[in-house]
């Protein structure tokens, strides 16, 4: 038995196809361009590679993954904020408020950014103390 294919009188309308594609692409473009950019600005002077260059009045903060020290004295994380505020409140000039930050190599960024945030909110200016690599040739 031969089946007869029905003949449609109207074609599928395609005139709106371009508009749909256009709107879809604009939608994807807008979605793709939304990247997080909120954050915190930080001005960091060039690092001190020589300890002799440090002014004697600057405060030194030492960071390890679990501890924080101020001028060699260890503090609990919850005590650090009030102590650094006290110390920096006594400093008059911006040069005195420079805080030299010495981090251990294994300090995670999240910890580092939290601690530098506390120092900056207390009025400190963070500068980094990086260990200088030295190559020693042994004959």
């Amino acid at each position, binding site marked *: 038995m031969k089946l007869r294919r029905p003949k449609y009188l109207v074609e599928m309308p395609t005139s709106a196809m*371009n508009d749909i594609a256009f709107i879809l692409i604009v939608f994807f473009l807008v979605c793709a361009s939304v990247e997080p950019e*909120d*954050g*915190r600005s930080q001005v*960091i002077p*060039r690092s001190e590679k020589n300890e002799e260059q440090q002014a004697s009045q600057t405060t030194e903060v030492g960071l390890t993954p679990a501890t924080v020290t101020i001028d060699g004295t260890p503090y609990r994380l919850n005590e650090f904020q009030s102590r650094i505020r006290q110390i920096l409140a006594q400093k008059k000039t911006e040069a005195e408020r420079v805080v030299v930050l010495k981090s251990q190599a294994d300090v995670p960024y*999240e910890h580092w950014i939290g601690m530098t945030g506390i120092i900056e*909110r207390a009025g400190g200016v963070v500068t980094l103390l*990086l260990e200088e690599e030295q190559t020693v040739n042994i004959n």
Partner: protein
Amino acid sequence: MAMGDIAFLLLIFIVLLARARDESHLVWQPATGTELVKPTNRNASVVIDKQNVTYLNGRPVQVQNLAAELDSLLGDLPAGGRTVLFKVHKNVIAEFFEPAIEAVSGAGGELHHVLEPAPNPSPVP
């Protein structure tokens, strides 16, 4: 009809150009912070991903060369217009991110750490 086709091709061209600078393929999770602000401008973007690899504008770069490359990117831009977006995976350690910060600082870039807002502390019952 031809007008629509031209617009369509133009858009695809723009999309492809945009993809060339895209950083969406980089895997990093921002650290949390408070009092976050939007950057005033964005001249360059440095990413350190989950694998401790450093990228400048989506392209892998050696940390030793970062200062020089940033210097040529920032050129003679005035102070206040030399913002460098700094996107570091939250678990990357100081051994990798501190030299990058030093390079940005050495090139005269103004750091803007990209962070996510810290969750609100739950109310004490």
